[in-house]
């Protein structure tokens, strides 16, 4: 059985319409005899048979528009296998062998004599990226622009999805046999001999580690938690959240209300807005609130400058801007600096109590826990379902004592429990 294809019927002709079948299925046909009439944009032509035999199936029907090179019918030549006829000088191009080298680039470690493209050099300089820590996915492990973009977005060097190449393992083994040999630097996730996973510490992870250690090492922490009733706030937010989303294009969370209350309370108790400087305590004039924003693998603390100047709506907008910047990796150093007090939205993780580590060199950090409805006695022997949450605070006990800290929390509690629509409107 052989195939007959639509022939090339002139310059610029790419398809033809079957006008009439001259030879019907089952009829005998000799080589070069016309088997069909084909109409193109330019001409009416007869398609000759490339073989002698019995007409098989009409694969294209009268009226069908058939691209040049497509099969129109089969001819039974008495031989077994199906083959293409070859009367058409211009076959549709077959994919070339070379196009099969389609492998998506595999991650490889950049060689020690790595060459960097101009854009990689520029982005690394702009974002303070140590190119030695970055794993390249380009040819021969070259670091590509996309690798750097990924580092900027994810905040950590890209780790290779594939296990370390055998050669690198050999080097590690060799290093272990000679005890004096220095530990080989791990630049990507590696399995060690025990099957443990060794995860390289990214520059962002290292910065977090150093800051946390320093804070806990230097600052004598003290903790306090206070339960507050935010039913009025919950009601108000439920009332306005849909209209807010429609108007502003992003969701209204509880956090801006808490920031508003905290900023107000800081104005009343400015000692919480200060820094221990050994000989003096620096009480900051401005209220710059740091907000802890977590990504999957790191923690960023962008700052709302002059948070006390904003309305709740303004705070919501600032928050949205900063969290978007964190998500998209477009934060500037300027957006990360200058905080004087930190608000941490631990409730977002479902936490109800937590002990925060102070954001060094600030004096305190407040943790807003999750809001849950609970049965609460609102007067003697009268239970009601109320929305409750905990405010947890960590303080630098060199600067602050329990008394002022309690007063501060009491004030935040007062502002939120006696929620005033006028004062904290988002309209």
């Amino acid at each position, binding site marked *: 059985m052989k195939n007959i294809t639509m022939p*090339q019927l002139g*310059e*610029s*002709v*790419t*398809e033809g319409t079957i006008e009439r079948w001259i030879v019907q299925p089952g009829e005998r046909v000799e080589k070069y005899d016309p088997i069909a009439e084909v109409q193109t*944009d*330019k001409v009416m032509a007869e398609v000759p048979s490339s073989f002698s035999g019995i007409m098989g199936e009409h694969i294209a029907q009268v009226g069908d528009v058939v691209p040049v090179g497509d099969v129109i019918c089969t001819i039974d030549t008495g031989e077994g296998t199906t083959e293409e006829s070859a009367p058409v*000088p*211009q076959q549709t*191009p077959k*994919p*070339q062998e*070379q*196009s099969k*080298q*389609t*492998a*998506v*680039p595999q991650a490889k470690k950049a060689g020690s004599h790595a060459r960097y*493209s*101009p*854009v*990689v*050099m*520029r982005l690394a300089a702009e974002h303070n990226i140590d190119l030695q820590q970055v794993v390249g996915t*380009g*040819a021969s492990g*070259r670091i*590509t*622009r*996309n690798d750097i973009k990924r580092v900027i977005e994810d905040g950590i060097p890209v780790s290779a999805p594939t296990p370390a190449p055998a050669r690198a393992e050999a080097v590690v083994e060799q290093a272990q046999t000679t005890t004096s040999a220095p530990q080989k630097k791990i630049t990507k996730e590696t399995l060690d001999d025990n099957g443990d996973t060794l995860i390289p510490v990214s520059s962002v992870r290292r910065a977090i580690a150093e800051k946390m250690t320093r804070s806990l090492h230097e600052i004598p922490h003290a903790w306090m938690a206070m339960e507050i009733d935010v039913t009025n706030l919950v009601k108000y937010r439920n009332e306005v959240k849909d209209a807010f989303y429609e108007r502003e294009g992003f969701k209204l969370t509880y956090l801006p209300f808490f920031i508003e209350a905290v900023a107000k309370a800081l104005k009343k108790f400015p000692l919480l807005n200060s820094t221990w400087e050994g000989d003096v305590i620096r009480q900051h004039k401005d209220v710059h609130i740091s907000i802890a924003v977590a990504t999957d693998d790191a923690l960023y603390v962008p700052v709302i400058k002059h948070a006390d100047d904003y309305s709740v709506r303004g705070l919501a907008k600032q928050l949205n801007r900063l969290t978007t910047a964190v998500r998209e990796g477009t934060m500037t150093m300027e957006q990360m600096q200058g905080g004087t007090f930190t608000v941490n939205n631990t409730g977002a993780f479902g936490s109800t109590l937590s002990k925060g580590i102070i954001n060094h060199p600030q004096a305190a950090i407040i943790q807003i826990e999750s809001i849950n409805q609970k049965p609460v006695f609102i007067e003697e022997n009268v239970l009601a379902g109320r929305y409750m949450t905990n405010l947890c605070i960590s303080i630098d006990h060199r600067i602050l004592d329990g008394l002022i800290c309690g007063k501060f929390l009491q004030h935040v509690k007062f502002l939120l429990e006696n929620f005033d629509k006028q004062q904290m409107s988002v309209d």
Partner: protein
Amino acid sequence: MPMMSYIDAITLAMKEEMERDPNVFVLGEDVGHKGGVFKATKGLHEQFGEARVLDTPLAESAIVGVAIGAAMYGKRPIAEMQFADFIMPAVNQIVSEAAKMRYRSNNDWHCPLVVRAPFGGGVHGALYHSQSVEALFAGTPGLKIVIPSTPYDAKGLLKAAVRDEDPVLFFEHKRAYRLLKGNVPEDDYIVPIGKADVKREGSDITVITYGLCVHFAMQAADRLASDGIEVEIVDLRTVYPLDKEAIIEAAKKTGKVLLVTEDNKEGSIMSEVAAIISEHCLFDLDAPIRRLAGPDVPAMPYAPTMEKFFMMNPDKIEHAMRELAAF
């Protein structure tokens, strides 16, 4: 919106412009009763008569020369070169007269002329019916050179060319004539001359090309997309003067640029595009600028195997795209 072929969109553009403005007329070899060897002027002779659809002698310098005179006199001629290969006898008229008319006369005269010509290979046209001639004219200030890649653009750009106050060379890829089909609105729209168009958005590599190669590049990009490689495709549409802003933006977007043309590589339109990118984008480049083009041999051969070797196709573009993506 009707589907139509690239050539039907061109015919429709001329028909609409001739209906709109009685000063528009067509002249060229066999454009009248026959409707052109490719049928681009089909039906115009019947509709508008022989006074506005002129069959001319086989003398390209006369066709363009007559058109220049008519244009200076207030007419809007569309001169057809039967094949772009035959434009050579008219080069003096185009480059030394039409292109310089406004400048030479200190703005007293101008030359609103369109020269249409089918170009390009892949149709077994061999030496005299396959050439790409755009680079011969690029670098002649006073000329605009337009090469559409879709039926939609073909209609909108040809109408813009007819209405342009200065000479426009309008090159139509002859293999695109009946190969490419697309939606073409029936209303009177214009595609602006001088503006490139992003035909596909992507973040991994940028391909800049024009004409039929846009179509091939889109096919290749579809294949890469199935492997997660996203290709940005920019269609220059006007190859002279170039849309520098769009070229720079597209090059900066991915830092990996592949430039594709069917023309011979050295001295092609893409050489100029590469120069623009290297002048403006050094610190955004992630790989050497690559050109994929026809070989530097005198002509498209006739032998099918050799024509295939010369001619651009989706496989060649796909291979070059993958190499660049992996760099």
